């Protein structure tokens, strides 16, 4: 397989080549899809914690990427970060459609998350509770904050890659992340007071 033999730079180059080909030859897009499918699915799953939602988001991500392939700028961050950004936006749309985590699917996702790990001590119980509250509050944030936090912490992208994926510099991303974290903390606090 090419991907296993290629160095990181060569891998990105291969992505760009595949995108170039995919603009004329749809089968090259299928190669890109195979290369990124599992990664995008894992990214979506970490936000939604349900397989069906992660599937929907993954499919929608590739559908949108395919339709807007002509907008991909090869001189930018690379295909991977570009795809992650689309996925992050799809997640925002997903939560908007689903009525956030108050929907049955959202509740199921939080339950899945709670069931996902064995909780055998007090500290772990508190941590799980915090995670659930944080995820509940996450989807109430402004889309740009959700995008920044998802790309930086849930996608596995480095700070540089996340910044280029968002189309901003690293310092701007740092400021955005700081504001997003502040907004998230306040949302968690509001949810705690409301509860």
């Amino acid at each position: 397989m090419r991907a296993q033999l290629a160095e990181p730079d060569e891998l990105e180059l291969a992505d760009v080549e595949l995108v170039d080909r995919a603009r004329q030859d749809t089968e090259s897009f299928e190669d890109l899809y195979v290369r990124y499918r599992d990664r995008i699915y894992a990214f979506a799953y970490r936000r939604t914690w349900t397989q069906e939602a992660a599937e929907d988001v993954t499919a929608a991500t590739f559908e949108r990427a395919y339709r807007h392939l002509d907008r991909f700028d090869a001189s930018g961050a690379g295909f991977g970060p570009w795809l992650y950004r689309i996925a992050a936006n799809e997640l925002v749309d997903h939560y908007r459609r689903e009525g956030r985590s108050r929907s049955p699917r959202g509740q199921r996702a939080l339950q899945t998350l709670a069931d996902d790990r064995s909780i055998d001590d007090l500290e772990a119980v508190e941590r799980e509770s915090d995670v659930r509250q944080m995820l509940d509050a996450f989807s109430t944030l402004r889309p740009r904050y959700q995008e920044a936090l998802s790309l930086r912490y849930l996608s596995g992208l480095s700070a540089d890659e996340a910044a280029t994926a968002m189309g901003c510099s690293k310092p701007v991303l740092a400021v955005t992340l700081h504001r997003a974290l502040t907004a998230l903390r306040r949302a968690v606090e509001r949810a705690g007071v409301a509860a």
Partner: protein
Amino acid sequence: MTMTDARLTGLLEELGARPVPALSRDASARLDDRIAALTGPRGAPLREDEPRSPGVVVAFPRRRRRLHWSQRCASGSFGDGGPSRRRRTRAIATAAAAAAAAVIVAAVPAGSPAGRSGQGPDPGLSLASARNATVLLPDGSAITAHVGLSLPEGAIVTTGPGGHAAAGGVELGPGGEAVVSDGELAPAVPVPPLSAPLPPTLPLPIVPSIPATVPASPLP
């Protein structure tokens, strides 16, 4: 409750590092189908396990020969033959498809149901795209709509808010409902919401009541 930024960052990083269950084979196939439908030459792909008419096989030889996505992944057959072979194969497939389509168009008059009820098995209607949609099958079972799903006669496709479905060139928007009738997706007539103003009604003319029994007139 109070949570510091550091605590939130720690939780996010922990969440990002948690293992994710691998895509199941079914889920993987569903996803592959959706993408194949997007990139394929003719909408919904044909699954290996679905019946197909001889006409379709002749018309689209590329689909027939092509392995399923998951099989291609498993066998590592990507890249075999290179792009030139792919282009050659596709050129042949496109030419064959065009020729077969021309024959079909010439043989079947526009709008005639002969193409569906004529010779050979019916290829059936299948979903070309689906999002947030449900299909109620004639046997009463409801399943989540996905691309490539066969729609038997009488099946009802319902889309939720923000949902979308398409089959046989008919698209269904959010909150829509359509019935498969005569091999086509027929959108149901929208029912006006209860809050919608009712159309003005004309006053009924007052008709004098007719006595149930007519008094017998005295005979002359």
